């Protein structure tokens, strides 16, 4: 696998919502990144509905229908429906397939009846728990690959939130251990993705389906949620920001293996990925508050191509069921951005989005288009190894955080950041030396299996 060594965008000033250098077109002709922001709705089944295939299919049928119907009702021209597999759907690959086929039919019906442009993203559940199974050779692995095969038949886009390195990450994050975080992302996550995504891309090519992308959700979002808001202090926001920058170098692997985008919505690192690859990205912020709070609700939309709600459990609200309500919200968010494009105000609108959160906290700051681009540049300029580029991303991130006086960080945050920098500076230069060090340090962490990653 060749590591990226060039930026697709020559300048961050060129990055804009709705447009990607390399747009993708779905089976049904929906262009993503081709000039317009498109909503991506993610309904989630209620607990209990997973008891049988029949009840689960009924749940998704309703949820997806409600979203499609609301688009027609209020006049949203296009939508992507994403179904994130619950474990049962991947454990029984036929379930995932049946639901995919059912949704494809629904989309077709809405196209015929109303001309609504829609697409379906099937996100396979990564049921390979790194602490329980061998990531490359286990029943769970076989099920994941089989699910990809089966869903790719009817889905427009396939994706996954892969879990490689999660065991070391969880161990490290509660210990504030930046070395372990780097190891879990750059070495373990990166190697697992290379192994997995080569296979996913192969399936997608054979089935004429779009290999979307991955996300650092299992690691960077865990860190971001632990850092929390302004009054939580489980871990510093600066650590969550460093994790995000490191995680970007990992998620990028999907695209280096051949994934074409759109990237997965919960990958908050996607602005960095878009800067490097020029591919369309799905993002989520204020309208995913139904799933979790964040400190970058607007800025994250600055360069998005799909605009998502992360996940919302299916239930009733005053204004209808949640998929209908959120499809409406997301569609209007997109319509505002598309209006800006129509008026030629997109730069101004983008500036509004960015200024909302640029200085709200470390995450919003590093994901502003300019800073995201700079982190991306650090990644491509250090393409000699996964380790080198991940560490460079962390250093660049820290440099940015400390370099803008308008970004205020608390004493505690700053002190912690300087501490992580010291640790990072003490690490070896070469990837092999780093691996040796980490293998010694983490070999006994519960469930860690080096051969899951082709190590020793």
């Amino acid at each position: 696998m060749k590591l990226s060594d060039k930026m697709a965008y020559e300048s961050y000033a060129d990055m804009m919502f709705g447009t990607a250098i390399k747009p993708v077109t779905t089976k049904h002709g929906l262009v993503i990144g081709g000039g317009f922001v498109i909503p991506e709705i993610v309904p989630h089944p209620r607990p209990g509905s997973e008891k049988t295939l029949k009840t689960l299919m009924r749940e998704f049928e309703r949820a997806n229908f409600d979203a499609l119907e609301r688009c027609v009702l209020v006049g949203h021209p296009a939508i992507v429906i994403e179904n994130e597999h619950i474990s049962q759907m991947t454990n029984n690959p036929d379930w995932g397939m049946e639901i995919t086929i059912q949704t494809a039919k629904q989309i077709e019906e809405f196209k015929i009846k109303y001309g609504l442009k829609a697409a379906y993203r099937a996100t396979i559940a990564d049921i390979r728990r790194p602490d329980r199974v061998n990531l490359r050779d286990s029943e769970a692995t076989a099920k994941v690959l089989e699910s990809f095969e089966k869903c790719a038949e009817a889905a427009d886009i396939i994706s996954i939130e892969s879990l490689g390195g999660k065991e070391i990450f969880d161990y490290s994050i509660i210990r504030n251990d930046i070395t372990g975080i780097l190891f879990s992302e750059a070495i373990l996550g990166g190697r697992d993705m290379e192994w997995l995504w080569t296979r996913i891309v192969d399936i997608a090519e054979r089935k004429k389906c779009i290999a979307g992308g991955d996300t650092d959700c299992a690691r960077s979002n865990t860190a971001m949620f632990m850092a929390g808001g302004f009054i939580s202090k489980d871990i510093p926001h600066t650590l969550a920001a460093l994790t995000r920058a490191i995680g970007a170098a990992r998620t990028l692997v999907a695209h280096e293996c051949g994934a074409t985008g759109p990237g997965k919505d919960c990958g908050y690192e996607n602005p960095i990925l878009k800067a490097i690859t020029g591919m369309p990205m799905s993002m989520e912020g204020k309208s995913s508050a139904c799933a979790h709070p964040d400190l970058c609700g607007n800025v994250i939309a600055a360069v998005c191509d799909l605009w998502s709600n992360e996940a919302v459990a299916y239930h009733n609200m005053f204004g209808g069921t949640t998929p209908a309500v959120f499809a409406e919200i997301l569609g209007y968010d997109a319509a505002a951005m598309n209006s800006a494009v129509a008026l030629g105000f997109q730069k101004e609108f983008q500036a509004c989005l960015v200024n909302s959160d640029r200085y709200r906290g470390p995450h919003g700051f590093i994901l502003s288009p300019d800073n995201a681009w700079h982190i991306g540049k650090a990644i491509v300029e250090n393409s000699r190894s996964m380790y080198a580029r991940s560490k460079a991303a962390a250093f660049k991130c820290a440099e940015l955080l400390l370099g803008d006086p308008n970004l205020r960080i608390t004493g505690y945050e700053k002190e912690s950041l300087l501490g992580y920098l010291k640790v990072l500076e003490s690490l070896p230069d070469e990837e092999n030396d780093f691996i040796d060090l980490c293998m010694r340090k983490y070999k006994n962490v519960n469930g860690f299996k080096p051969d899951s990653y082709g190590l020793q």
Partner: protein
Amino acid sequence: MKYSTDTSGIFTRFDMEIEVTRRSIRRISSDFALQAIADCVADGDEEKTEEAVKEALEQKDPLEIIHEGLIPGMNEVSRLWDEGVYFLPQVILSSDAMMAGIKLCEQKLGKPLKKKGKIITHTAEGDIHDIGQSIVNALLNADGFEVINLGTDVPIDVVVEACLAHKPIMLTGTALMTTTMSAFPKIAAKLKSMNFNIPFVCGGGAVNEEFVTGFDLGIWGKEASQAPAMAGDILEGAHWQELRSKWNG
């Protein structure tokens, strides 16, 4: 792209504000002498507080010193304690410093300061473990209540007589030894028979919720730090049953 440097209308960095106010007490007065008094209270320095109060008394009204120096200083300490910046030993020192200052002001006034309400505290007859009671005393003082401290090893009749004489809004009892806690239901029964139905908050290592809520008037005090809030509820008109249903169960 333009970046606005004034973000005050866009968002509020509560984390920065929390950190700034965390470092030390807020400015409570533009008057140098009053601020100095508040600082001494916050430092928990009894001697310096007394010196500062004595000096201020040459120019100022004792009530002003109390209400605009000593009490605001203590309030800042309580706030910092709530926020996890200050710790209990510091709060107790500050409470002692404030009380020393108030005492000097009261001497000058020639009469005691009017407090929020009277509370009698004691440690059970036969027991001398009074760490819990000292914490309760300090926190109640800090919150502006008048504490009548009967001390340790207090016979049942002395407690009951003190209640009749002082008419407190609340009585507290502390016991570490289970052998001594049997005094509590006896005190409660006597008060009840005299139709003096004040809340009787019992705490300490010996007693548990089941025991204390097993007799009328009894409210279990899990932590010494709950005492001021309980007393506050009584000022707002809470009866012992209401207090029990709020704090126990």
